[in-house]
């Protein structure tokens, strides 16, 4: 039996496991997946928890529910990969041999990278919403908060789901308006980037939305530390932003296992060929999802599109053929904007988000870079699609690589 080992059973790893289970000859290939945690989180849902739209039960299910039968499952921490000898060391001392390895260990928030973040205000006045614990704690805070300075701060790029902080301020704006205390809540968006988003056309649309909703943007702010006594963010060039409630995206880094294996860059993201998704170090190691250092969004949609390319290239590699499928960095993100509306962006390595319709040119039903009700329903429906189709590796009616059809060039 030849062996494929998948490291990480999050969105990317679980999708890949299901895809491979379907297409590979079970007499010939043995599939193993390794993850230290047993709970699968629907991470796009975390955003809704602080505003009471979803609760904890809406976003968790056992990982086991999504594994096909007849695969090996190991719930334990990964120590390291020994690429020279095609082996994975598990923390319990077990050693796994592999013919092909897929690394899908994702990205993690690292609040310990920012001094003062996990100080006395952590989960009292400072929150993240990238963990279910943080999102639930923030919900409790918001329930009886009477207003003040609400600051959303991005610590570092890249980070998971780059539109989430934007959605957070838009939803907060709507939430406090509906509570009748919007005039008492001053909302600021603090970012190390030069504007609301990095690509010009989307930045323009989103900046206009920020102005319309009276949300301040503090750009080029690279946070050094948090002063807990005076409740201030302090940047490396000594600028200050005061807060009453701070919501923060902590520094994101890849799994420490990547560092121990010597496969990563200085943020522990695996050095990966951005087109073939093969690791730069070893021909029989592939990388899927947030764990890769490829220059596109860290998001489930990217992992979904990349999974098709990876499957094709893995099949080629198994037969010793050249890797022909090329990933284009395709990402597709819904952006909740509050009041039951949403925007949608679709882009890749070389084409920035443009206005138009999606997925059908001229028809939609979704409007690209437009703020509509139907886009919001797309996001709400997506939770069902995620649990029932996406994780199980079923085909969705969207091409892996991006199409220009339906997009308007600027």
């Amino acid at each position, binding site marked *: 039996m030849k062996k494929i080992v998948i490291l990480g059973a999050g969105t990317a790893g679980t999708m890949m496991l299901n895809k491979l289970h379907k297409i590979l000859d079970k007499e010939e290939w043995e599939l193993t997946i390794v993850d230290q945690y047993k709970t699968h989180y629907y991470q796009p849902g975390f955003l809704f928890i602080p505003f009471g739209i979803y609760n904890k039960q809406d976003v968790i299910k056992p990982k086991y529910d999504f594994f096909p039968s007849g695969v090996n499952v190991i719930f334990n921490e990964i120590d390291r990969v020994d690429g020279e000898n095609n082996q994975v060391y598990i923390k319990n001392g077990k050693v796994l041999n592999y013919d092909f390895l897929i690394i899908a260990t994702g990205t993690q928030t690292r609040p310990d990278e920012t001094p003062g973040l996990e100080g006395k205000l952590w989960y009292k006045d400072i929150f993240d919403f990238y963990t279910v614990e943080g999102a639930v704690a923030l919900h409790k805070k918001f329930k009886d908060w009477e207003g003040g300075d609400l600051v959303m701060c991005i610590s570092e790029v890249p980070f998971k789901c780059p539109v989430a902080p934007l959605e957070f301020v838009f939803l907060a704006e709507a939430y406090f308006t509906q509570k009748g205390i919007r005039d008492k809540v001053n909302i600021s968006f603090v970012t190390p*980037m030069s504007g609301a*988003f*990095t690509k010009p056309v989307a930045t323009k649309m989103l900046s206009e939305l920020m102005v319309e909703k009276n949300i301040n943007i503090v750009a080029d702010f690279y946070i050094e530390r948090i002063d807990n006594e005076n409740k201030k963010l302090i940047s*490396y060039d000594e600028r200050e932003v005061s807060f009453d409630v701070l919501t923060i995206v902590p520094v994101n880094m890849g799994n420490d296992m990547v560092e121990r294996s010597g496969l990563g860059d200085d943020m522990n993201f695996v050095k990966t060929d951005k087109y073939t998704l093969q690791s730069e170090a070893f021909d029989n190691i592939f990388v899927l999802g947030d764990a890769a250092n490829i220059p596109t969004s860290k998001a489930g949609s990217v992992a979904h599109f990349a999974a098709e390319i990876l499957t094709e290239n893995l099949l080629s590699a198994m037969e010793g053929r050249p890797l022909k499928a090329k990933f284009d960095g395709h990402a597709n993100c819904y952006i909740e904007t509050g009041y039951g509306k949403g925007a949608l962006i679709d882009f890749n390595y070389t084409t920035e988000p443009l206005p138009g319709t999606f997925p059908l040119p001229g028809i939609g039903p979704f409007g690209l870079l437009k703020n509509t009700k139907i886009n919001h329903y797309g996001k709400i429906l997506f939770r069902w699609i995620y649990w029932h189709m996406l994780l199980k590796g079923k085909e969705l009616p969207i091409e892996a690589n991006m199409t220009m059809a339906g997009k308007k060039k600027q």
Partner: protein
Amino acid sequence: MKDLNIAGINVKLDDEGYLIDSSQWNEELAKELAKIDDLELTDKHLEVLKFLRDTYNAGDSLTIRRVGKSGVVSIKEFYKLFPKGPLKLSSKHAGLPKPTSCV
């Protein structure tokens, strides 16, 4: 796009002042590029620029955090040397393309 003669070389800069042909870069050119931004480059500045070029040419992406871990300067010093947007400014003087954060 601008055509300029800087430090005795004919160079092209893009609309934001970034050098089109990175291979034309040398220290003299760096000093002249920095003058456009009212910055007088010291040896420390040049040390940073060389680190950026070496990292970039090795195929690695540039981040402020990586510069901070380089051993050449701390992030605070980096901000003092190239005020406001240190990575954008230093990349410009290092003759590299404008850094893009991936979203």
